[in-house]
C-alpha cells in the first residue's frame, strides 16, 4: 500500500513530457469524462435507442484508443517506431478517426 505515494512522486517526476505528449494526457482525461457522463446518463434514463448509446460510448472509447496509439507512435522513447515519421503517424490517426466518425454517424440512427 505504501507504494502509492511513491508512485505519485515518480509520476510527478515524469509529468513534464515534451510539449505535445503532455497535451495527450489532458486530451485523454477529457474523453474519459465524456464517456463517464454518457454511462451515467444511460443508467438514469435507460438505454432505449441502444444503437445511439453504443455509438456515443464507442466513439469516446474509439477516439481515446486512437489517441493512445498516436501517442505511442510519436513518443521518441519508443525504439520500435524510430523509422516512422510522426507526420505519417498523425496521418494514420486522422484517417482512422475519419472512418470511426463516419461509422458512428451511420450508426446513430
Amino acid at each position, binding site marked *: 500500500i505504501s507504494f502509492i505515494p511513491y508512485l505519485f512522486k515518480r509520476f510527478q517526476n515524469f509529468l513534464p513530457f515534451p510539449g505535445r505528449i503532455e497535451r495527450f494526457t489532458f486530451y485523454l482525461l477529457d474523453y474519459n469524462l465524456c464517456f463517464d457522463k454518457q454511462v451515467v446518463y444511460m443508467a438514469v434514463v435507460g438505454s432505449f435507442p441502444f444503437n445511439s448509446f453504443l455509438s456515443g460510448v464507442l466513439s469516446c*472509447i474509439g477516439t481515446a484508443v486512437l489517441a493512445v496509439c498516436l501517442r505511442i507512435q510519436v513518443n521518441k522513447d519508443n525504439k520500435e517506431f524510430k523509422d516512422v515519421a510522426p507526420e505519417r503517424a498523425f496521418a494514420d490517426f486522422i*484517417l482512422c478517426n475519419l472512418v470511426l466518425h463516419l461509422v*458512428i454517424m451511420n*450508426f446513430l440512427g
Partner: protein
Amino acid sequence: MPPQTMSAKTDATIGVNGTAKSTSNQAPPPMALPANLKSDLLNKLSLKSFKLKTKQQELLLRVSILFLVYVLAFITRLFSVLRYESMIHEFDPYFNYRTTLFLTEKGFYEFWNWFDYESWYPLGRIVGGTLYPGLMVTAALIYWGLRFLRFAVHIREVCVLTAPFFASNTTLVAYFFGKEIWDSSAGLVAAALIAICPGYISRSVAGSYDNEGVAIFALLLTFYLFVKAVNTGSLTWSLASAFGYFYMVSAWGGYVFIINLIPLYVLVLLITGRYSVRLYIAYNCMYVLGMLLAMQIRFVGFQHVQSGEHMAAMGVFFLMQVFYFLDWVKYLLSDKRLFETFLRITVTTTVGLAAVALGVGTASGYISPWTGRFYSLLDPTYAKDHIPIIASVSEHQPTAWSSFMFDFHILLFLFPAGLYFCFKRLTDATIFIVMYGLTSMYFAGVMVRLILVATPAVCLISAIAVSATVKNLAQLLRTKSKVTQGGSSKAASGSKASSKALLDQSQPFQRNGAIALLLGVFYLLSKYATHCTWVTSEAYSSPSIVLAARGAHGNKVIFDDYREAYFWLQQNTPTDAKVMSWWDYGYQITAMANRTVIVDNNTWNNTHIATVGRAMSSYEDEAYEIMRELDVGYVLVVFGGVTGYSSDDINKFLWMVRIGGGVFPVIKEPDYLVNGEYRVDKGAAPKMLNCLMYKLCYYRFGELMTEYGKPPGFDRARGVEIGNKDIKLEHLEEAFTTSNWIVRIYKVKPPNNRW
C-alpha cells in the same frame, strides 16, 4: 523450386573466372575451357539474354508464376459450366441468386428493407434483416461495373462466375500471406497449393453461388492484414484489417471464428511474453473499428456486446488495457519487488472484476449464451439430442478420415512437417498461422463443412514445409556445383567456398541424395495436382439440380427433372398458389417456379418445419386438415425409385418424422420402423405404408416396370419391391410427374360439397 538464382550464380563465377583469366599471366587452367563453352550455352538459354539483372529476373518469374496460378484457379473450377451449362447449383445459391436479382432490379434501399411474403407462408420473412448481404452486394457491384463498361452480361453469368473469380483472388492473398509469414517462395507455393486444393474447390466451383466462396477470401484477407498490422504496428494496416473484418461479417456467419481466433492469438502472445506496443495498436484499432463496422449489418446487430460468443474479444480488449497500464507502471517504477506486488494485486483484482461482470451478465440473461449452432461445435453430441434440424444436415456430420484424405491429399502429412518448421522459427506471424491451423483442424474434425475453413491454414503450413525442404535441398545441390565450377579460382571465392568444399567432399553421396529427394518432392506435387484435378472433375462439379448417369450403352443420360417440374409449376398454377414440400427445395421453388412456399432452406422456424413434417408423416385425413389450415394448393415430393436416385424424400423421411416428433408428440418414430429397421416393402409398419409421403411417392408406382426381370413396383433406390401397391388418394390428385418420375406434384382438392 525457384532455380533462377542458379543461373545468376553461374554468371557470377564465370565473371570472376574471366577477370582471373585476364589479370593473371598464367595459362588458363584446363577446367575453364569447357566451363566457358557451358557458360555460352547457358547465356543463350538464360534470361540474361534479355539484359535483365537478377532482381528483375526474379520479379518476372514471380509475376508470371502468380499469373499462371491465378488463371489456373479460375479455369479448374469451370468443369460444370463446360459439361452442362452456366447455371446455379444446389439449393442455397438459388436464394442468393434471387436476392441478387432483386437487388439489381430494385436498388439497395428496397433490398435492405425487403420483406419477402413468398416464403414461409403465412409468416413471411424479413430478408433485409436476416441475411448476410456481402455476397449479393459484391456480385451486384461487379455486374454494375461490367454494365458501366458496356459489357451486356446477364446477372446470372456474374453470379455463376463470382466464386471462381474470388478463388483466384484468394490465391493472391495467400501469396502475400505466405510472404509475410515465411518468405516469397513459400508464398508462391501456398498460392499454387490453394489454387487447386479440393477442400476449397468443393464450395467455390462455378455455379456454387454461396457465401463461402467470398467468405474464404475475406477470411484470409482479414488474417493477412491483421498479421501485417501486428508486424508493423501501423494504424493503416489495422484499419485495413478492420475493413477486412467488416467484409467478412457481411459475407458469412463464420465470422465468429475470426472474432474468437484473433483474441485467442493475442492472449497466447500475451501469455508467452510477446506483448509489444505494436500488438496493442493493432488489436485495439482493429477491435474498436471492426466492432463498430460489424454492427452496421442488421443481421449481426448488437451481438458484439451482447452475445456470449463475442465476449472473448471484449475480455481480451480490457486485458490489453491492463497490460498497457502495467507496462507503463513498470517503466515508471525501477524497483522490481514493488512492481511485482503491484502486478499481483492488479492481476487478481482484474480477473476478479472480469469474472464478476461475466457472471452477472450471463446470470441476468443480458449476455446470451452460445447459440446451438456454435455450441454443437464445442460439444458435438449436443445437436443430436436437442436440435434435430442441425443434426440432420449432411454437412454437419463429423468428418471421416477418408474425407480428410480426399480433400487434402499430400497436404495431410505436409501439415505436421510445416508445423515443425514453424516452431523452429517462432515469430508473431508463425505463431498465428500455427494457431489458425490447429484450431481449424479441430473444427474440421467436428464438422465436414468446416474443412473449408481449415484449407487455407493447411495450404499455408504445407507450403512452408515444401518451400523450406526444397530450399535446403537446392542449396545442397548449388554448393556442390558452385564448388566444381569455382574450384579454379579459389582466390576470388574466398575461404567460405573452400570450407564448404571440404565439408562437401567428405560426403560425396550427398548431392545424389539431394537430387533423389528433389525428384521425390516433384513427384509428390505432381501426384497432388493430378488428384486435385480428378477430384474436381468427378466429385465436386455436379450441379445437384441436374443429374447425370451412364445409360445402358455407356452414353451419358441427363436428368433435368427438377427444372422441368419447376417450370411446369410456373406455367400451370395460379400465381398465388402455395406449394408444400420439404424444406430442402424451398429456395429452388421460389427462385425458379416463382411460387409461395411453406418452408424453405432458411430453417429459422422449427415449429413450422415440424408442422410440414407432421403433415407428411400422418395419414391422409389428418394431413389434409393441416394442409387446409396452411392454405396449401400443391404438394411436391421427390422420388428416386425409378432412376435409383438416392437423395429423395423417402430416404429423408425419417428426419421428417424426427423433426415433426420433436414438436408434436403424436408422431412417434418407432411407429414407422419394424424392429428398429426402416423398410418400405411388404414387411413395413402399417403407419409407414399409409402415411402421406408413402402414398404420394408410390402412387401408381405399383404398375410400373422399372427393371428387367423384377416385379412391377420395384424401388430401385431401396432395392426392394414396395409393399402397398394399390394406393388410392382421396384428398389429393396427381397434377404432374416428371419424365423420370423424380419430382411429383399433387394438387390439393377443395373440400367436398356437403351432398
